């Protein structure tokens, strides 16, 4: 596949409590879905790819650039990997308003005014311009999702990792946001890894599918192969 632009590698992650994740992957451009029951290692996969959890073995390459290689003792820190991660909890900064949340990931080389301008643009693009001056505890579920996505995309990532991004939303809203997201991701043209256990969402957004179970890849293939059952 598009491994020269994609996210590719093989990792083995040991977690406290004896959980072992073994993941070989080749995520091309566009949405790849990581599917599986809870406790199967989906979140651990994202944390390891983002550089927040260190794998015991293996290597990770993004767009041809090595980010992690246990044998060569290479471990690019999370803040230099240019991989945006949207947590299931969204992890919006509670002490910053929406605008400053989004501006947080913009390059420090820009002036303050330019960062605010860009943050405003991203909020507008995610249809959340109306919450710019508000703090996260006042957001509705949908607004929080939009701000979190705006913040992730504004940081100009080379890959986007989404952990159950719509789990807090009711079904209709999740679909609406999913459709919008599909659009903006097509624009972004980068590897997007989507963790979900929503079959419908997986079918609609995903191209490639990896099914995890108990820390191992159970199946892998195209979304329309009927792998989702």
């Amino acid at each position: 596949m598009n491994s020269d632009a994609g996210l590719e590698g093989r990792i083995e992650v040991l977690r406290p409590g004896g959980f072992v994740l073994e993941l070989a992957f080749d995520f091309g451009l566009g949405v790849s879905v990581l599917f599986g029951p809870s406790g199967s290692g989906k979140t651990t996969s994202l944390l390891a790819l983002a550089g927040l959890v260190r794998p015991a073995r293996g290597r990770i390459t993004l767009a041809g650039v090595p980010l992690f290689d246990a044998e060569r003792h290479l471990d690019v820190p999370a803040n230099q990997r240019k991989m945006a991660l949207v947590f299931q909890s969204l992890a919006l900064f509670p002490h910053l308003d929406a605008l400053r949340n989004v501006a947080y990931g913009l390059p420090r080389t820009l002036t303050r005014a330019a960062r605010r301008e860009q943050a405003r643009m991203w909020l507008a693009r995610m249809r959340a311009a109306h919450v710019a001056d508000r703090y996260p505890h006042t957001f509705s579920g949908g607004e929080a999702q939009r701000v979190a996505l705006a913040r992730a995309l504004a940081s100009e990532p080379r890959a986007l990792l989404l952990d159950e991004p719509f789990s807090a939303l009711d079904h209709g809203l999740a679909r609406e946001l999913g459709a919008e997201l599909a659009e903006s991701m097509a624009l972004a043209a980068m590897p997007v890894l989507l963790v979900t256990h929503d079959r419908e969402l997986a079918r609609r957004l995903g191209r490639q599918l990896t099914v995890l179970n108990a820390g191992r890849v159970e199946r892998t293939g195209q979304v329309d192969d009927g792998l989702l059952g």
Partner: protein
Amino acid sequence: MDVEPLLLSFGVAFVATAIAGVLGVALGGLLAARRVWGREFIDAAVTAPMVLPPTVLGYYLLCSVGRASFVGKMIETLFGSPLVFTRAGCVLAASIGALPLVTKAARAAIEDVDLRLLGAARTLGAGPVRAFFTVSLPLARRGILAGILLGFARALGDFGVTLMIAGNIPGRTQTASLAIYDAVLSGHDDEATRLSVTITALAVLVLVLASQLNRRRRDEF
């Protein structure tokens, strides 16, 4: 009432709290980071002043910064006056007492910050230092402030260590707690009562402030 010891106590407590505040927050942040080697040992060393007898602590300080010690001689050459039996000694004694309170509170408050918020900051391009100052510190500020207030109260009331390394020189190093001791010994019970009541009132005020800061706002959902 002789206010000079009270004023000295407050001055010393302010400076000592500033020192212990900066040092304690830095240490608390370091101890909350999980990749620091020997962090439980550092924690124990910082906490020791809370459990050691003041005389032991004072003795150690005399040995390490006294006029005969290497550090003491360096200080005397650099500043032209020794540290021991001066107001600087009072500040050192008070800082040592306040430091564990600030450090403990800062560590707990910083460890309490949701790791996912720090993770988000990291993936958004923030290095550990920027993440500390823009995420950990602002979110831990209430707990840290509460620790600083407790540290201030502790610095205000130090007796043993101050006596050991700063002496009890009226008008120079005699803080309120030492003045109370002197007043009792020399039979000036009225003076002792006045100073004691003043100190008590101020300490209670500080504790009330600290608990106000520590209390989570329950009306916030």
